[in-house]
């Protein structure tokens, strides 16, 4: 089940231009824009909930988007909440449905062997390798914070105490390391 995002299938629907939506979203959103904007957010939430290694995560995302479009077409979104919250609710429900369905299936069948997209994997792997290299070039001051905080999974306070700095300083160093990394990637 793949969602086509070309203009013919999901054309901007007149319902989306009603006053309520316009009031909350200026300029008004059409379905293409909604899909483009929310696909990454929905994907992120779905992967975090069911695991990025679960091959069906993309199917769940598409189900969510189809559901969103259907509801928008039936004017079920009345602008009581923001479009983001509206989509969040649908996403959460779909994830719960998926988990329930999966636990039912598991009663009768073994879990299918996950097969992943090899191109995607290679791409991810290359990007991760590159980032790892850049991280290795950071000053020890930043590296030790990242090491203790993320790799050793210590709390902010524990890292702070170990390095004899304030917890606030820990966050500052992490944020600065991220900033440096961003610059290095752009170069």
């Amino acid at each position, binding site marked *: 089940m793949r969602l086509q995002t070309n203009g013919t299938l999901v054309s901007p629907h007149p319902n989306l231009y009603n006053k309520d939506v316009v009031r909350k979203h200026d300029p008004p959103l059409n379905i293409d824009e909604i899909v483009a904007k929310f696909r990454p957010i929905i994907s992120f939430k779905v992967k975090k909930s069911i695991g990025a290694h679960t091959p069906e995560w993309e199917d769940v995302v598409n189900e969510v988007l189809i559901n969103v479009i259907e509801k928008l077409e039936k004017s079920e979104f009345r602008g009581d909440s923001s479009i983001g919250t509206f989509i969040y609710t649908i996403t959460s429900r779909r994830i719960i449905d998926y988990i329930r369905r999966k636990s039912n299936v598991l009663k009768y069948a073994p879990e299918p062997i996950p097969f992943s997209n090899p191109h995607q994997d290679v791409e991810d792997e290359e990007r991760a390798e590159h980032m790892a290299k850049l991280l290795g070039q950071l000053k020890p001051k930043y590296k030790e914070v990242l090491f203790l905080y*993320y*790799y050793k999974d210590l709390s902010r306070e524990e890292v702070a105490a170990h390095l004899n700095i304030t917890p606030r300083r820990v966050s500052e160093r992490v944020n600065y390391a991220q900033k440096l990394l*961003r610059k290095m990637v752009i170069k």
Partner: protein
Amino acid sequence: MKECNYENRIDDYLLNRMTEEKKEMFEIHFFNCPDCFEKIEERNSLISVIKSKGNKIFHDQRKETETETETEGIRTQARARKLERKSVFEGLFSFLTPKQWTMAAISACALLVVFIGVAPNLKSPTPQFVMDSHSVRGDSLALLSPVKNTQTIPSEFRWDNLGEGVEYKIYLYKDNLLWSASTTGASISLPKDVKDLMKAGENYSWEVKAFSREGSLIAASNKVRFQIDSHL
């Protein structure tokens, strides 16, 4: 990019250090805040690279803290430092809770009042007189010493002198009569054998009766109780 209150919770969310309730609030937020979502994605890729490639990136750091036990060490150290950070002043006061401090202060005040009000009286306790069973008509006889608790076993008993030609009879009691003697003076020494019978920590009482030359009772004292203090 605008600053957002949720920004500093990104790590807690990604590292699963959030309650379900807070997690939901956070998720609703990033469904509505593109800036935060962008930062979350960026931080997420940083964390996943660190988690998967950490052993390569941090090979120098890992030499320092290689084993899990050392990580435990860091944790304990962190806890210890947290405790250390409390100032000496704070440490002094955390010895007791505020409630306990109040109680201590009240107790101290009460003790002070007791000490100031009662302590001077302890120095000279009023003589305790026990009325004898038989009442005597005539003058009363005042006993002078000992009339209060003493530190030592008294060697002499003294009383008011009623004048010439009076014979005094002294009675010393423990539970029963311990010793009795007669004299014409206003004092009498305690014989050594009686003294030996008396012990510290015990209660004694004594009285004196005055007789005329003819042998008739002319005055009697009250019975005075005294104790020889036990610390001797």
